C-alpha cells in the first residue's frame, strides 16, 4: 500500500473527469486543461509544504513532457532529467516515466530509463481511470521510487554528487 504521507498528498490533488487521449481532439483539450490544473495544484501544495521536488513542461500538444526532478540526501541535492510521452491509449494506460540519466544503473528500470513502478501502482491506476492524471503518476510513481532507489544508488556509489547541479539551480 501507499504510505500515509503519499496518501495524504494524493488526496490533495484534484481528480480529473474527462476521459480522453491525445487523439480525441476536443476532449483532449479538456483533458489537458484538467491535467494542468491538477499539476498546478500539486506543485502549489508541494511548495507550501516546502517539498518541491520537480520541474516539468510539455510540448504544445501536451503529448511530450520533460523536465527535472531531484532528491535531497544527507543535505545534498541529487538532480536527474525526466521525460515521458503520453501514450495513445492514455488515460487507460499510465504514462511511462523515464530517468535517462540513470539508465543501466539500477535493476529497477526498463531500457531507456523507464522506471519500474511498484506492483500496486498499475492496479491502482487502472481502478482510477480516468480520475488519475500526470500529477497522480508523479506523486504515486516517481516520488516513492526516488525515495527508495536514490539512497540505495548513492550508497552503492552508482551516482555521485555533482557540484554542477548546484550551479544550475
Amino acid at each position, binding site marked *: 500500500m501507499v504510505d500515509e504521507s503519499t496518501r495524504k498528498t494524493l488526496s490533495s490533488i484534484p481528480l480529473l473527469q474527462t476521459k480522453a487521449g491525445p487523439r480525441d481532439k*476536443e476532449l483532449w*483539450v*479538456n483533458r*489537458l*486543461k484538467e491535467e*494542468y*490544473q491538477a*499539476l*498546478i495544484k500539486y*506543485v*502549489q501544495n508541494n*511548495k*507550501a*509544504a*516546502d517539498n*518541491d521536488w520537480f*520541474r*516539468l*513542461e*510539455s510540448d*504544445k500538444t*501536451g503529448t511530450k513532457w520533460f523536465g527535472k526532478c531531484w532528491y535531497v540526501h544527507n543535505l545534498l541535492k541529487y538532480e536527474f532529467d525526466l521525460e515521458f510521452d503520453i501514450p495513445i491509449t492514455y488515460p487507460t494506460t499510465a504514462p511511462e516515466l523515464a530517468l535517462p540519466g540513470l539508465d543501466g544503473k539500477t535493476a529497477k528500470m526498463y531500457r531507456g530509463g523507464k522506471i519500474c513502478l511498484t506492483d500496486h501502482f498499475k492496479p491502482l491506476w487502472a481502478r482510477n481511470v480516468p480520475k488519475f492524471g500526470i500529477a497522480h503518476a508523479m506523486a504515486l510513481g516517481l516520488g516513492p521510487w526516488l525515495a527508495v532507489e536514490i539512497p540505495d544508488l548513492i550508497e552503492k556509489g552508482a551516482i555521485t554528487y555533482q557540484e554542477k547541479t548546484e550551479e544550475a539551480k
Partner: protein
Amino acid sequence: MKVITDTILKVRRSIMAPSTDWDEIKRLAADFQKAQLSSTSQRLSERNCIEIVTKLIELKLLDVIFTTDGKEYLTSQQLVKEIRDELYVHGGRINTVDLAKELNVDLNQINTSVSEIIKGKEVQLVSGYLIASYYLEKIAREINEKLQLQGQITVGELTLQYDLPADLLQHSVLEKYLGKIIIGKQDASEPRTFYTEEYITRTKAKIKGALTGLLKPTPVTVIVNHCNMAERLFMMLFDQLCAPGVLTGRQAGALYVPSCYTKSQNDWVVNFFKQNNYLEYDAISRLGISDPKGYVKRTLTNKDLTFLSTCVIGSQIKQHLETALEECISSKSYLDVVSLLPSVLSSTDIENILESLLKNNTKSTILFDNTVFSNNYIEQLKQNCLPMVQKKAENIVKSGQYQQFHLERQISRSAEMTQHSHVDHKAERREERRRKAASGKGGGGTQGRETKTKAVKKHQRSKQIANDSDSDESSNVIKKTQAELEIVSVDDVENKIRVTLENEGLDDLVTQVAEFLQKSLNQTALEIAKVTAEKLLQDASQNRKQTHTTAQDKINILVNDIKLFEKGLKLLPPDQQSNFIKYLLKSLGGDVLAEFCKYAANQCNLSLQVDTLTVEQRNKIIHDLSDEYKKPLSALNAVLSEQNIESFYVAVDASLAVCGMILKKVDKKKDKLLIQNHREKLISELENCDDPALSLHIAVLAIFTIVTQNMLHASGRLVPAITLYLKSHVKEEQFQQLQTCQELVTKYLTAADEQKTELEEKLRNTLPILKEMVQEIKKQK
C-alpha cells in the same frame, strides 16, 4: 525564463486559430510554469525549531518551559496563570499530578510554580492537593448543610467524604467557620464531633423516652443501639437528664437500672419476706441482684435473720419451729421439720437450723433425717418392742446360742491373750527399761523405737475399738457377732414399729428409727439375756443339787424295789426264775439306768427333752456322755441284758460311785410297809380296772402278794407261771376260777375279731368273781 515565456507566446500565437481552448491550455501551461518557478516558501521544520529553541535555552537566552510532548513552550508566568485558572475551573481544589497531566507540563515545573503560588495566603498545598480558601469556604457551607440535616457530624466522617486530612478539616474548616458558616456546637469532650443544638435536644428527648420506657435493667449498649447514638454522647447527656434510674458505671459495659425496677425488686423482696418469712437466694438473683446476701442485709435491716447456704429465714419461722418443737416434746410425739420449713431449704440448711434449734433440747429429742422425735415418742416405740425383745432374749438363752456365743468369745479371747501375753510381757519389760533410762520424762512413752512393740498392742486395742465402732454403724452381722451378739435385728425392730410409723406417714424413717432402736434394744436384750442366762445357770445348779438327791432317792427306791421283787421271785420254782429276773432287769433295771442317764446328762449339760427315755435315747445319751460317766453306765447297760441279778448290783454300785450317790440301808419295817402299800395299790387298781386281761394280771399279782407276803414284778406273759405257783396256796375252786379266767384271756388275746366280743362278755362276767376272790383271800389271811 525569458526564453520560456517567449516560446509560450510563440506557441500561443500559432495555435490561436484552431480554437480558443488551446489558448487556455497555453495560459495554463504558463501558469504551471509560474507556479513551478515561484519561490518556495522557506519553512522551518518542527525539528529545526526545536533545535533552535533548545539551543537558545542552552545559551540562557530564553527562559521557557516546554510541555511534556515537547510541542509547546510556555513561560513560567504563563504556567502560574494556567495553574490558577485550572484551580479555579476545578472549584478550588486540584491535585498537582492532575495539573501536570492537564497542562501537559512536567510535574517538577508544576511543583516549582506551585511553591510560588502558595506563597500567597489564598492557596495552600495539602498532601498533593492545591486547595484554595474559597474551596474551604465551600466545604464549610456543605458541611453546614449536612450538619443541619444530620444534626451531628464528626471529623472522621468528613475526612472520608472529602478525602482531606482531619487536622485541616478540624482547624481550617470547622473551627474556623464555626458560628459563621457552620451553625452548631463543638463537643467539649470530643472536639472532633459537632452537633446542632437541635440535635442535642432531640437526642436528650430520645434518651429520656427510652429510659422512661425501660422497666428492667438494660445494658447501655442496647439502649444506645436502639436509639442509634454514640455511647459517649449518651453518657454525656445522661448526666444532664434527670433519668428515672441509675447507671451501674461509666464504662462500656454499664447497665441502666430503672428506679422502678429497683423499687419493685425491693417491694418483691420485702413482700415475699413478709409473707413467707424466708428468702431464697436463687429467687433474689433471678431478680438480677448479684449479691443476695448483702442485698437482703441491706434491705431487711433490723430484722432477725438467719443466713443459710441457699436462703435467709426470718425469726418467725424459727419461732414457729421452736413452738412446734416444744409442743412436740410436751405432747410426746414427733415433728416433721420439713413440713414446717419452706420447701426451698436444702437438707444441709435444715440440718443447720435443727442443730441450732435442738441445741437446747438435745436431751429430749432425737433427730432422724429431718424429723424430730421426742424422746418420749421413741421410748414409746421402744416399749412396744420390749415384749418382742424379752421373748427373743429368752429364746436365745434357751436355745443355748447365747451361752455358746459367750463360750466362743471366751475361747477366742483367751486365744488372743495367750498370743499377745508374750509380746506384752516383752514390751512391758522394755518399757520399764526405757523408763529407767529416761527417768523424769514421764509421759514421753510414745517416743523412740520402742514404740513399735507398744504399737502392736495399741494397734490391737484400736482395732478392737474400730471393730466396735464398725458394728455400731453398720448392720454387718458377721462383724457384729465378733463383738456383740445381735439378738434383736434391725429387721425385727422395723417390723415391730413399721405399722406405728406408717400410720403416721413416716415409713421412710422406719429403717433409721429401727437402726437407732436396735442398738439400745439389743443392749436391753443382751442384758435380759444375761440375766436370764444367769438365772438359768442358778436354776441349773439348784436343779443339779435337787436332781442329785432325787435321782439318788429314785435309784434307792428302784433298787429297793428290785431287791423286794427279787425276794418274791425266789419263791417261784428255780426253772422259772430266770424269766422273771430277765423281765425285772429289763423294766426296773432299765428305769434305774434311765435315772442314771438323766442325771449324767444333766451333769454333762446335755439337753433332755423328755422325762421317760426309750432304749435308743438311753444309748444315745450314754454315747454322748463324758468318759467318767460313759464307762460305768455302758457297763450297767450291758448287764441289763444278762440275767444275772448279782452283776447288776455290782454295776449299779459302780454307777452310784461315779455319781457320788449311796444306797441307803434297807429298813425291814419299811419293806413291810412297802409291800403292804404295793398290795393295797394292786387291789385298788384291780377295783378300778375294766380290762379283763389286766384285771387278771393284777389279780394274780395281788393274790401272790397276799399269799406270800412278798411282791412280785411280772409281765402278763408270766401270769400262767404265777397261777401255777398259786395252786398250792389257794383253794381248789379259786384256783379253778383263776385257771378258767386265764384260759379265757389267752383265748381272747389270740381270738379273731368276731369271737372277741363274745369272749369279752364272758370275761366281764368273771371280773367281779376275780375281785371278790381277791377280797376273800385277803380276808382269809
